[in-house]
């Protein structure tokens, strides 16, 4: 198929959209409602291009090329039209003294700002229009500021097409069209999983996490408090992006140093409690397997996934591992074992988590494990704190985590990527069952960003059927297949976010497939570089069991490290 783009000839061997064709020709066309993960929607019309012989402009995202087509991507008509549309969008974007760019959650990652610059908007000739819609602060995880919403539908489509959660919708018509939740109940009162994928998708500041930075600053300046911090595996491979580094830059040591500079008394690692999770979960699996317990076992590290199951598939609640997530296990151990060691009271200790996840903010306040963790910050919030403190993260000399809750294995590190929990569990389960050393530690079959991965692993003549699922839309598919008897597994890892935690709703914006892959490579690089790569070989974990927990699934473990769930339908 031959097409002319701006008078140059290009050839394509199959039918693609004009947008893809121009991408191939290295021409950038502005888009707002378009997103690579979603079905093209054709509503913002910023990608409109002129096609010879056509009466009106055509949106490049939903128009396919045809043989002989002549496309003009920046003709007079195109430029004039885009500029006017952009002016209209900006005028309706809640611009006022209270709602200006300086205080916006997306001040550093605002798509409309970027596109306005590309289009060359130099003045807004129409008066601003304020829609007057109230903020939605009903959720523990996510805040909606509808005054900044431009109704591009990306959050609605992401929640539906990718996550199959469907809590967001469009209401009303015309100027009153707005994004809302069922019956306007608010994000905290509907079946929201708090995954935060909507925040990643939002091109404006209409969606952001519930900030806890102020509370953490207060704790840090309260001298009576012993403030410790844990950092999730996926944060260290993403935080540098907030400081203009290439995606995939590993900044563990700088982040640890930065946290100390912020004033944390101890800097610990969620990777440590990830190892602990593996000890409990691998043994829970073995116990269920031996004693004809409920199988398949479903992982429970991802609070978005857990809430999704509680809302949509309560019949499967017994399949969920009773293990708390690494974040909560860390809090439980810190406030008992570690506090005892230091001789300070639980009340004087503040546990802060740095998570790639917005659902962790909800998990923290679940009544079943309230008190383990005090505050949860996303990767983005941590970056804001670093910036406020003037910490030049990329140039801070690296430092190591504190001991003992900062000691971890490669198995803990890979929790950050989809498939990591499964791989870590298999490393431990294999050696516990066989008593032999595992030769090849990498389970390639469960790596990568495909939505559903399957593998059969032979251990002692038993074929273990496992699956790894990321993204809630895929979770729904797999659960349906299990329900219908189409699939049988022993053990399934579920992560709410596409790509697992590295693609979490609390991660830097943008988070797209290309960036997720780079973060994933970095995660596996961390694993490869570590001397210890199996959870049961983590010396700090061994000590913890010797000194405190006795053994996996002990009474003490059950009291501190296991939890229960709630049917929410």
């Amino acid at each position, binding site marked *: 198929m031959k097409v002319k783009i701006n008078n140059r000839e290009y050839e394509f061997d199959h039918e693609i959209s004009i947008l893809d064709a121009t991408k191939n020709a290295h021409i950038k066309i502005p888009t*707002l*409602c378009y997103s690579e993960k979603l079905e*093209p*929607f*054709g*509503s*913002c*019309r*910023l990608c*409109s291009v002129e096609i010879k012989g056509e009466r*009106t*402009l055509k*949106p490049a995202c*939903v128009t*396919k090329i045809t043989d002989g087509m002549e496309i003009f991507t920046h003709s007079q*008509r195109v430029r*004039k*039209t*885009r500029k*006017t*549309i952009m002016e*209209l*969008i900006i*005028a*309706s974007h809640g611009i006022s003294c209270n709602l200006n760019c300086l205080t916006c959650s997306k001040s550093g990652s605002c798509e409309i700002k970027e596109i306005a610059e590309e289009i060359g908007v130099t003045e807004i*000739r*129409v*008066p601003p*229009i304020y829609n007057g819609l109230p903020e939605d602060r009903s959720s523990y995880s996510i805040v909606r500021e509808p005054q900044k919403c*431009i*109704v*591009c539908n990306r959050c609605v489509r992401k929640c539906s097409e990718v996550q199959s959660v469907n809590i967001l919708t*469009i209401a*009303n*018509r*015309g*100027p*009153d*069209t707005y994004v809302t939740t069922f019956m306007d109940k608010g994000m905290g009162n509907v079946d929201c999983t708090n995954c935060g994928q909507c925040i990643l998708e939002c091109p404006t500041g209409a969606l952001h996490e519930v900030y806890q930075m102020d509370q953490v600053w207060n704790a840090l300046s309260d001298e009576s408090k012993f403030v410790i911090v844990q950092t999730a595996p996926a944060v260290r491979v993403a935080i540098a992006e907030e400081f203009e580094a290439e995606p995939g830059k590993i900044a563990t040591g700088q982040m640890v140093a930065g946290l100390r500079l912020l004033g944390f008394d101890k800097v610990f690692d969620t990777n440590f409690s990830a190892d602990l999770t593996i000890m409990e979960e691998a043994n829970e699996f073995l116990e269920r397997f031996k004693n004809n317990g409920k199988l398949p076992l479903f992982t429970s590290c991802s609070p978005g996934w857990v809430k999704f199951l509680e809302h949509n598939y309560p019949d499967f609640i017994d399949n969920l591992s009773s293990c708390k997530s690494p974040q909560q296990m860390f809090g439980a151990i810190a406030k008992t074992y570690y506090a005892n060691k230091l001789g300070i009271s639980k009340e004087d200790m503040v546990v802060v988590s740095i998570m790639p996840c917005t659902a962790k903010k909800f998990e923290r306040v679940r009544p079943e494990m309230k008190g383990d963790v005090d505050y949860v910050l996303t990767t983005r919030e941590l970056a804001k704190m670093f910036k406020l403190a003037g910490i030049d993260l990329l140039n801070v000399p690296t430092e190591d985590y504190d001991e003992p809750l900062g000691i971890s294995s490669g198995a803990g590190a890979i929790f950050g990527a989809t498939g990591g929990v499964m791989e870590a569990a298999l490393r431990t389960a294999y050696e516990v069952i066989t008593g032999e050393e595992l030769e090849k530690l990498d389970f390639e079959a469960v790596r990568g960003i495909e939505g559903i991965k399957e593998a059969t692993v032979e251990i002692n003549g038993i074929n273990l059927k496992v699956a790894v699922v990321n993204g809630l839309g895929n979770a729904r598919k797999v659960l349906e297949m299990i329900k219908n008897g189409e699939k049988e597994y022993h053990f399934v890892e579920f992560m709410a976010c596409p790509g697992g935690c590295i693609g979490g709703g609390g991660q830097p914006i943008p988070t797209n497939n290309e960036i997720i892959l780079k973060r994933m490579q970095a995660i596996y690089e961390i694993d490869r570089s570590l001397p210890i790569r199996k959870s049961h070989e983590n010396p700090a974990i061994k000590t913890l069991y010797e000194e405190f927990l006795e053994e996996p699934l002990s009474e003490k473990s059950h009291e501190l490290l296991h939890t229960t769930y709630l049917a929410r339908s």
Partner: protein
Amino acid sequence: MEKIFLKKDLGKSLEEYDFPGLKNALNMEPQQVINKIKESGLRGRGGAGFPTGIKWETVLSIEDDTKFIICNADEGEPGTFKDRFLLENLPFKVLEGIIISGYATGSKYGYIYIRGEYVEAIKIVKKAIEKLYEKNILGENILNSDFSFDLKLVRGAGAYVCGDETSLINSIEGDRGKSRIKPPLPVFEGLYGKPTVVNNVETLAAAAEIMNYDNNPYSEMGTEKSRGTKLVSISGDVNKPGVYEVEFGKLTVRDIVQELAGGVKGEKIGFVIPGGISTEALTEEELDVPYTYENLQKMGSNIGSGGMIVVSSQRNYLEIVKNVSDFFRDETCGTCFPCREGNKNISKIVSDIYKRGYPTSKEIEIISDIQYAVSSAARCGFGESSLNLILSLFEKFYTKKVEV
């Protein structure tokens, strides 16, 4: 002047009306029916003016077990009431047209989508459909032929944008009344993804009438590009508002106002909106244009839906502009940005102008730019045409008078 609709049939009961057009059609091959419609030169009477025969032929050519006919009776264009006239007075002719189009395109299912506000029309059509089932003019083996056809009435909930065929299809499917991305065109993937003809009430009634004759009087009337007759509904400042049948090319817009509608009520004509409020206004000096698609297009306007609105020179034009802009602001489906934001902003600007009593040159410039962007880039015909009238009124009456 020959009148096709209005000279006869009016007030006839089913006992008197024996579906001559349908009977003729059933004795022909579908392609022959289509040929006859093509020969007649009939163009869609909803506003877009697409050749009806070609639309039918496209659907006939697609092989599919399920195809649909939709009669678009969501007449919402302000000032337009000719479809209502047909539904209330000639329901059998409209239904006959639907069945004929079903036969000609190989469709076994039809929908008539009537706007909810047309309470009387809904009652009449509902009763008419029941009667047709009783008389085996709908259902299995219609009039003992091999052709079976089922027809269902759907009430619109009252959204102007559902007059857009893709919005209408969404509405029938139970979705929000918002436009779909085209392509695919409904003739290829319409209702429930199946090939679908969407025709206006008047188009289908005209098709039934065309099938009524052995010869083709329709093709002999009008001009080459505008053949046959058109129902014009006239309202506003005229002495005899109502629905009139006009043979294309025989009368000018001024003739229609003066001779058919009894002339202007008031001092003199200020302007005429020839085809509903999506079409550009004609000033008093521009009224000597023959009433045809091509001549009105030359004047920068359109036949549109045939809803002619006459405005006397004594009116406050800004009040009319304000009403029109408020209407479009409220009725845009809100899906595409240019249409939603454009109509919202224009309505705000116009409201300021109305309060002040005159526009500034800066306001006219921005109105013109917004119209340009919206008509270039909107997702459906609603947006494309929503600002035409407003801009034309400013251009024709205010550009020279504005204060800078």
